[in-house]
């Protein structure tokens, strides 16, 4: 991956070994560690990075909104990966329990150790995305 060459600098390289999740992107809709993905293997397959989540330049995606709202960002280095993992989780499980959220984030490390707010943010995001009717169900 060459984020600098594409001017997509949101995705971060943390451990560069597939452990920390900072580089998480969606490849064909599935969260993957981009640091372990050879660029040639991704050729012709749809990739979503953090830049691709927001619907427009003036709006944020509901997961991003929730991170802002709950102040789930400390230094911010892990945030892009956390948000992409949250996207994968909520795509597959729109109403996760707290335990399921923690499980869904098990491949993402925050060196500020700010997990509490991140877990809260994803709960808030699930509510935003699910809407009131789904919540009651």
């Amino acid at each position: 991956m060459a984020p600098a060459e594409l001017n997509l600098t949101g995705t971060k390289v943390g451990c560069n070994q597939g452990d920390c999740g900072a580089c998480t992107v969606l490849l064909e809709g599935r969260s993957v560690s981009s640091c372990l993905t050879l660029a040639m293997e991704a050729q012709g397959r749809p990739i979503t990075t953090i830049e691709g989540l927001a619907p427009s330049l003036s709006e944020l995606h509901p997961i991003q909104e929730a991170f802002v709202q709950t102040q789930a960002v400390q230094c911010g280095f892990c945030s892009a990966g956390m948000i992409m993992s949250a996207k994968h989780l909520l795509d597959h499980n729109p109403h996760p329990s707290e335990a399921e959220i923690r499980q869904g984030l098990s491949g993402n490390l925050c060196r500020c150790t700010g997990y509490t707010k991140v877990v809260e943010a994803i709960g808030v995001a699930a509510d935003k995305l699910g809407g009131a009717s789904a919540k009651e169900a």
Partner: protein
Amino acid sequence: MATSHFALHQPQSLSQALDLLEMHRASVRLLAGGTDLVPKLKVGALKVANLVSLQGVPGLGAVAFDEGQGLVIGGTARLAQVAALPEVKRLYPGLAHACSVMATTQIRNMGTVAGNLANAAPSADTAAPLLAYDARVTATNKKGSRDIPLAQFFAGPGLSVLEPGEIITAITVPPPPPKSGSAYQRLSARSQVDICAVGVAASLSLDGQGRLAHCRLACASVAPTPLRCLEAEEMLSGQAPGDDLLDRAAQAAAAAAKPIDDMRASAAYRRQMVEVLSRRVLATCLAQAASLAQAQGGAA
């Protein structure tokens, strides 16, 4: 950031992939999920001139179950794919557990079952349950295919009986017998994300009299290869299950383990946990089998 240079070949058919393996056999590795291979390339722990990617090979990515053949896991089927299949959850709960808790979501979305076996790590999480299910590995080369019982597949840490030029094209798991149960449990020091320090899987089935018709017990991370506990299996086979018998079988499994001290656990802890986990997985299997026996009892 990779420290070594290599050529990446992306064949679009199995025969092309086999040709490439043959052509570059002096220095070639297969690339499937890449989750074990790419980190090694990055740190320079592995130098190889050619990678042959299996991604473009059609037909290898499927996971399917049918009642005759059982479960067939294609050579590039991903861990998350196996974990998500309803039949795997229902009929192979030990394998479903391994494929849904090992590593991280991202790694499970990339890594393959075949890769987990081919790397032949003693700690391979899918190995213990697949051993307990009597799985077979289909290895294909230019001349044809051969089936290798998984119990004969591992040759040492990082070593298997796969020969140069062979590709794992499928892993086949027989259908579970009626009145059967299976389970896998693993321990790691920090969290599930860590490589397993001890793992134990079992499968068993009950006969009409409630005796153990067949039993398998297999361990990960406690020997140079994933390990079948044959003494414990023989002890259990044909017997009426009871607490005392399960205790003795668990002790036999612990005695069969050949663990080492390393950063993940001490040998003594591992041996003790083989006994504890064996007892637990056997109890889980028996409970499953007994509840199926009750449900199927009228029909039998």
